[in-house]
């Protein structure tokens, strides 16, 4: 068991090191194949290891590598339980498909070997994050994932915007990580250890007061918001689209951004003790979902639509885990991984076909030109809009159901979720229509063609998963719930309603989806309306929040730093030091005129001194 679990991480890590060293020599397809095999290998091992979980609740196992930080009692230790198994399967599964796809997509790119070594680095760090058995190792994965996203976003570093986007992503993630570190501080100060087991059992034994639990939970939320691009730290995800499309698919849709959701699910025990914090998570999720959905409507760039859509769907997941429906959240995470990866890869194949063109207003009528891409993206489009029997419907409906079930204010959140579902359907239909239907608005010299088989095969597989994926956890047969139960039995789970209420809610959400699609079709059927009114520009630029951030933090920060560096430091402190030097010289200058040159003034001084001395002696009463 130990070896095989470690192997899951060592395979991609080996791939990464091998390609990093000899990427160039292995050359064009070879590097891709090595990388893909590594990830597929991990996937197969994960399936084998997860097998005994499926037919009954196998025990959670831990594999200890070595003692990493003795003073903190932190061991480099892996944990294999149902939740990490599920995440590993998603990461390696979707990952291997995307690796396969990238071989086609990145053909002819000079940095081919380097790209795949970075991809394997990402898979390794994501697996470390998912398989960690203590907060410190989780943080290691957390940061390494940030590193690989930095490297992959600014992969084409010759383009300044890509480099800037990579830096922005890392720094915004880092802001989130500050919250995470503060949470670690509190946890360590309370429990004296960072191991999951000690912390969660301690939480159950009541070692954690409500205020402390809320503090830790809120700080963990800050970390999660940073990594999963939730309000207010979402600004880096749209810019991260500068990276190659497979990267967007893998990192910014399927796996990395879901790390926040996984972390909240994993630390359920703490969130359970802090209802306010859990509610905040849900509210943040809901708000982000609605907010991002509104922006997605007005995007022209196909990848940006999907980026805001991802932020919105992550909002859903946060709503789920916030409402203590961890299985629902994780379920939506899984289904979202399938159809969102598919959408991104589809978009990549569209861009590939249109030789780099990303503006939807310059596309149209591609259905005939790219039938497979169109078909698979259509499936994903129906899945994300929540049309049964596709995957999206089951997971999103369960989340809405749970939120509605919680009653009280939660139903307001349910309303928000419903509106977002409608908007989701609208902007996805808009995207599909602008890209695949209507008359072609291509630039001249652009010859769209279907992508090679290497790229379309993963699309088809993902399409299948998008269809089948939902059936894993339907109200009739909640297999996923049983699968994950041992992980969450310590935490009391909120369950979706059943019986007539479930049906009504399902009907309402499907109706919302259909209305969204209908509205979009009506609007875009005949001609592409000109979209540059005030409202459109406002939404198109994301309420200008990004520019506000740039102005306030970047601009303001720079001004403050300039003042501090060149005014305060150079003139202030350094000036003080140099000042002391020139002061002594000046003082010397003041004393110079005392030497008048006249002997008699010196005589005068001597006599004055004598008189002074005598007076002083006399004042002390005689000698």
């Amino acid at each position, binding site marked *: 068991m130990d070896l095989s679990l470690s192997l899951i991480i060592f395979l991609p890590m080996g791939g990464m090191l091998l390609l990093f060293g000899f990427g160039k020599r292995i050359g064009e397809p070879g590097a891709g194949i090595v990388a893909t095999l590594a990830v597929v290998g991990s996937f197969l091992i994960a399936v084998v290891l997860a097998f005994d979980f499926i037919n009954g609740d196998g025990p959670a196992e831990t594999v200890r590598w*070595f*003692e*990493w*930080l*003795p*003073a*903190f009692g932190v061991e480099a230790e892996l944990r294999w339980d149902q939740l990490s198994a599920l995440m590993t399967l998603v990461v390696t599964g979707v990952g291997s498909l995307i690796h396969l796809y990238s071989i086609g997509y990145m053909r002819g790119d000079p940095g081919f070997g380097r790209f795949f070594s970075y991809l394997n680095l990402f898979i390794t760090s994501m697996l470390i994050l998912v398989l960690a058995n203590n907060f*410190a190792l989780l*943080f*290691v994965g957390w*940061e*390494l994932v940030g*590193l690989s996203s*930095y490297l992959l976003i*600014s992969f084409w*570093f*010759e*383009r*300044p915007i*890509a*480099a*800037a986007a990579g*830096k922005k992503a*890392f*720094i915004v993630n*880092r*802001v989130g*990580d*500050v919250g995470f*570190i*503060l949470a*670690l*501080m*509190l946890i*360590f*100060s*309370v*429990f*004296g*250890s960072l191991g999951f087991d000690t912390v969660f059992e*301690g939480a159950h034994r*009541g*070692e*954690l*007061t409500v*205020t*402390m639990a809320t503090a830790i939970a809120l700080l963990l939320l800050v970390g999660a918001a940073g990594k999963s691009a939730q309000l207010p730290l979402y600004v880096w995800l749209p810019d991260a689209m500068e990276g190659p499309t497979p990267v967007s698919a893998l990192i910014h849709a399927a796996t990395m951004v879901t790390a926040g959701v996984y972390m909240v699910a994993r630390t359920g025990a703490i969130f359970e003790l802090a209802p306010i914090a859990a509610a905040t998570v849900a509210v943040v999720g809901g708000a982000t979902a609605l907010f991002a959905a509104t922006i997605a409507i007005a995007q022209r760039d196909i990848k940006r639509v999907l980026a805001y859509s991802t932020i919105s769907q992550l909002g859903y997941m946060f709503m789920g885990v916030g409402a203590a429906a961890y299985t629902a959240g994780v379920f939506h995470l899984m289904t979202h991984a399938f159809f969102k990866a598919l959408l991104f890869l589809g978009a990549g194949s569209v861009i590939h076909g249109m030789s780099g063109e990303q503006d939807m207003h310059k596309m149209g009528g591609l259905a005939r030109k790219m039938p497979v891409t169109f078909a698979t993206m259509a499936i994903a489009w129906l899945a994300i809009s929540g049309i049964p029997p596709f995957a999206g419907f089951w997971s999103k409906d369960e989340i809405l159901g749970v939120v509605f079930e919680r009653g009280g204010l939660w139903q307001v959140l349910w309303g928000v979720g419903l509106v977002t579902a409608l908007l989701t359907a609208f902007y996805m239909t808009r995207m599909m229509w602008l890209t695949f239907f209507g008359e072609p608005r291509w630039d001249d010299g652009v010859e769209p063609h279907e992508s090679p088989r290497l790229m379309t095969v993963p699309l088809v597989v993902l399409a299948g998963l998008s269809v089948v994926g939902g059936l894993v956890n339907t109200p009739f047969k909640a297999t996923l719930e049983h699968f994950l139960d041992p992980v969450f039995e310590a935490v009391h789970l909120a369950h979706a309603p059943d019986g007539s209420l479930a049906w009504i809610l399902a009907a309402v959400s499907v109706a919302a989806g259909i209305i969204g699609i209908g509205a979009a079709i009506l609007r875009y059927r005949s001609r592409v309306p000109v979209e540059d009114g005030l409202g459109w520009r406002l939404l198109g630029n994301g309420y200008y929040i990004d520019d506000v951030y740039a102005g306030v933090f970047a601009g303001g*920060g*720079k001004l*403050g*730093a*300039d003042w*501090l*560096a*060149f005014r305060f*430091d150079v003139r202030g*402190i*350094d000036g003080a*030091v140099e000042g002391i030097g020139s002061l002594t010289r000046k003082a010397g200058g003041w004393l110079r005129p005392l030497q008048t040159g006249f002997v008699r003034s010196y005589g005068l001084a001597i006599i004055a001194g004598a008189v002074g001395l005598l007076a002083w002696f006399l004042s002390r009463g005689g000698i």
Partner: protein
Amino acid sequence: MDFPILSALIALPVAGGLAVLLVKRDELALPLSITSSLVTFGGAAWLLFAFESGEAGFQFVEKSTWHEPWGVGWHLGVDGISLLMVVLTAFLFPIALLASTAITHRVRQYAASMLFLQAGITGVFLSLDLLVFFIFWEAMLVPMYFIIGIWGGERRVHAAVKFFIFTAFGSALMFAGILSLGFLVSDQLGGPTFDFVELLGADLTRNAQLWLFGAFGISFAIKVPVFPFHTWLPDAHVEAPTGGSVILAGVLLKLGVYGLIRFNLTLFPKAAVDLVPVLAVLAVIGILYGAIVAIVQTDIKRLVAYSSVSHLGFVVLGVFALTTQSLQGGVIQMVNHGLTTGLLFLLVGMIYERRHTRQISEFGGLATVMPLLAGAFLFTAFASIGLPGLNGFVGEFFVLLGSYLSLPGYAIAATFGVVLAAVYLLWAYQRMFTGEITVEANRGLSDLSVREKIIIIPMAALVVFLGVYPKPALEIIEPSVDAILERIEEQTDYVVPEFGSTGDIAVEVAE
């Protein structure tokens, strides 16, 4: 056979220096000095393996008194705190010399002064007699002054003089402190003594300790440099030659921290406990101030210099949080900072040797021309930012989590320094290495030569090793650190906070 390894570690560089001076031909200077420093490194490596890591006291002690009535003598010893620094010094010098091939005029004097500098630094780390410590402290200044003053950049004389006066001012205070300490204890210990081990036995009044803490503290604070005394560092770094600034950043700054731990914490515990808030404030200011100022620097060396101010702010915070984790973090971060910042300076030196300018605006798109150097720079930048898996993270993690219980507010403020570190380094990397090549001169630059690879690979390997498996290093540090904390607990009413005490206690402290 108790071969006086410690004295050898000091004598070897001196002998090397003299030999280099005697040999007439200039081109022999660097190879000879490199071999001499490599031999010293061999000795240091042997010392590292022969050192029992579970011990708290001084090992390999050599003692011979010169002047009995005053208890002055040649007393060397090494313990958990100084061992790693001695090995780091011995490790950095051959690399610094190997990186100084750009020095052309008066190479012999350069190599000799570097070796004398090594002797001085090793002497400071090893000597347990306050007067001998002071002699080495002053002796070390002279070669550094020449290295900056003669082989430096344009405003080198200004920088050298500023560096010298700053440190000399501090050491004058320290000398007064040493003398008064030596004679203050004469009535308790039967006659004045300058021997560190005997001084441990003395019990000074709180007032005396405060004054002595101030005298020693200011001198070490200048060296560290703690916030208000840092203005000499950017000038000294910008003007120092590559080899000089590697040593300056890698080891010289740590003398201040070593002094703070060895003398201020151990000899004056009462004062140390009282002054914790003061130094914690200065440390946190240093962290945030150094980082913010580094963001907008136009000269890359000045940027790295300010980053050193920020990183050493972390170390000082760790040292004065007075918990076993934070103190260990401080000591290990000294070594880590030495490696990462040393490597950063080496890389900056390599770029300087190619383009003879340090202005960031002069560069752009270097990654297309020199991918290896760009990769090394990014690797070191991430180590310096504190990416887990690399050595910077271990130190920061220890300091931040360790200092939370005793200094909650300061630890939280210091955590934001982590973000700023990412900002200034990545922004510098972006401006220098990514994007198109704008300046024509950058187009023809060559990538890493074999010599440069030989410099980078060992350091990079150490950076990764200390990041992934810091256990052996931490086990060396832990006993000595615990010994100091126990001594503080005995001497004062300060209790080292217990991590993981039941939730409620921690809550009160945290409120």
